[in-house]
């Protein structure tokens, strides 16, 4: 489903990704781990098309398409979803408006009909319930005044509504207490399916106790330096990332 080949990215004149290779097939969950500053978020931004995060060389194939040639909205409509490490606050826009606009933009692009206000509400309520979120979330302005945990749950709510084919989750566990972590992990696990792939970016192994990955990759200094099974996460938790930094 996703093939990243020799991806290089320079941000603000600094080389951040220096030849990333990664392949995920449908139905799999891969974890990308690595020390702070190793380029994990940069990888997520390049995949989703954020301005200022371009590939200087290399290519990314998504379902056989050249992903990097698409605009961010085209990627989203093609089924790519990024759960942000730092979700953005949008004053003046109610969460329901935001969600419905997004869902309908994606539906229209797929040739489906727009959801009516009623149908949308019904679906949103069901997803809110699964994530143990109060209905008042729909009326609140997007992420404004949300706690860190609420923002992360709101990301998963969006993912649940948009039903992406490829989800990139950037540090979705950070800022969550253990109860919230379980709820969010449940929400993510519920979306695991044969047709869907996930790239779970995390600094800690903790999340991977709940979302058990098929593969674990270590990103250090802009490259995937090691790949393995889920036991690699446990090993990293014990040893830390020291052996992968240039000082080691």
């Amino acid at each position, binding site marked *: 489903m996703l093939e990243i080949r020799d991806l290089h990215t320079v941000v603000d004149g600094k080389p951040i990704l220096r030849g990333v290779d990664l392949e995920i097939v449908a139905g799999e969950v891969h974890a990308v781990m690595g020390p702070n500053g190793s380029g994990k978020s940069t990888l997520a931004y390049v995949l989703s098309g954020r301005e200022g995060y371009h590939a200087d060389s290399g290519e990314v194939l998504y379902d056989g398409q050249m992903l990097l040639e698409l605009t961010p909205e085209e990627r989203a409509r093609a089924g790519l979803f990024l759960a942000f490490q730092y979700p953005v606050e949008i004053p003046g826009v109610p969460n329901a408006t*935001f969600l419905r*606009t997004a869902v309908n933009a994606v539906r229209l692009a797929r040739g489906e009909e727009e959801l009516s206000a009623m149908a949308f509400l019904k679906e949103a309520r069901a997803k809110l319930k699964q994530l143990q979120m109060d209905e008042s979330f729909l009326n609140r302005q997007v992420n404004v005044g949300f706690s860190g945990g609420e923002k992360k749950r709101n990301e998963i709510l969006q993912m649940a509504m948009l039903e992406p084919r490829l989800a990139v989750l950037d540090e979705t566990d950070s800022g969550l207490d253990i109860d919230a972590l379980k709820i969010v992990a449940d929400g993510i696990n519920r979306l695991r399916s044969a047709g869907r792939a996930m790239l779970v970016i995390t600094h800690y192994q903790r999340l991977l106790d709940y979302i058990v990955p098929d593969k674990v990759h270590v990103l250090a200094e802009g490259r995937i330096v090691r790949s393995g099974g889920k036991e690699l996460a446990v090993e990293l938790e014990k040893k830390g990332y020291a052996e992968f930094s240039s000082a080691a």
Partner: protein
Amino acid sequence: MGASKHTSDVYVDRFDEIRDRLPGAGLPWLKNLRSGAIERFADCGLPNSRVEEWKYTNLSRILDPQPVLAGPSINGVHRASLKQYYLDPTPCHRMVFVNSYYRPDLSDTGVLPAGLTLCSLETALADRPELLEAHWGILHDLSEDRLSGKNDLKPHAMIALNTAFAAGGAVIHLDHNVSLDGPIHLIYLTTLEGERPAMSHPRTLVVAEAGAHATIFETFIGNGGDAHCCNALTQVAVGPGARVCHYKHQGEAPNGAHIGSSHICLAKNSTYNGFVLSDGALVSRNEIRVRLEGENVDCSLDGIYLARGNQHMDNWTRIDHMAPLGKSREVYKGVIDGAAHGSFQGKIRVWPEAIQSDARQLNKNLLLSDRAEASSKPELEILTDDVQCAHGSTVGDLDGETLFYLRSRGVGETAARNLLIDAFVGEVIDNLADVPVRKYFRNLFNHWLSEAT
């Protein structure tokens, strides 16, 4: 002042030609008022940007060469072209004016309840001249006593010009405790005079006596792409305990000019809710002077200006807290695109006797292009201690990170921008109290957004 002096001579000559043909020409007080006004105009000349009050707007760009003074004989205006401006659906009293002259054939005043006078300026000058004498006089009272006491603002040249030339407009009077079911909608259309762009001077007077309640909606439009100039003046007097909601849409044709000034006098315990939306004209100025003359007045003054292309929109407001316990709330928001310029000059003055006043003013601007420009000059002058006052102003652009967030959810770039622009100003519209008026402005705003390039 050389160029504008020359220009002003043309207006003075024109006044001499028509003075005896103006409505109410036989009324001595009006004759004096008009002569005084044209003298004042000749003294000042056309306002230019060297005058602090007019620092953001240079009128010579539009008034030199001058448009011709509009006469009453305009045909070829049909109801079909006005329908898009109607309020819907509501019982309403609608008056239509073409080049400031009342057009009963295009109007639907409906059934007037007892205690409501709703008529043209010409009719009012014939039937109720004392009403006009009282209120027009206040505006032009230049006596030292008044200037040193309550009124430090002399009427400027464009106000004087309106007083000298005003030959049409609406006069609205509500008796004590009269309350209207539907809004009064005044549509002012300025169009060509013969082959040439016209200048019109519509004049509106609204008087709500004690305990009365009315919603007044003024729509200013131009016909087609004609260059024209509308120099409008509206006076509103709200009596003790009375309430007036006053809306205005400045939607002149894209090549036109609009100079509007509103003068609002508020008696004790009265409520005034004012709202102006500007999206028309090449050059426009919207000026509002509000005087909280009695105790315990509740006043809100909101505005939205939507500018694009080469439009220039100047908003000038002055709020005088002159008595204790007055409350004023002012929010002006501008969305500026292309190479347009939006400006806001707003002053609040709290007089020594206006203890326990509560005044807040906010001006926010959203720039949508690199060439768009906003100027903001909020000002507080507080002459007593026991008050609560706050003001603020911001100029910003659409946040790139927020746009990316929306796009990463599948929302297209234009839709994402529109959503954020709506989040910036839409709330002001959606909070308007009158449903038909809210719908009018909502449709207008959505249309404006859909025309974005």
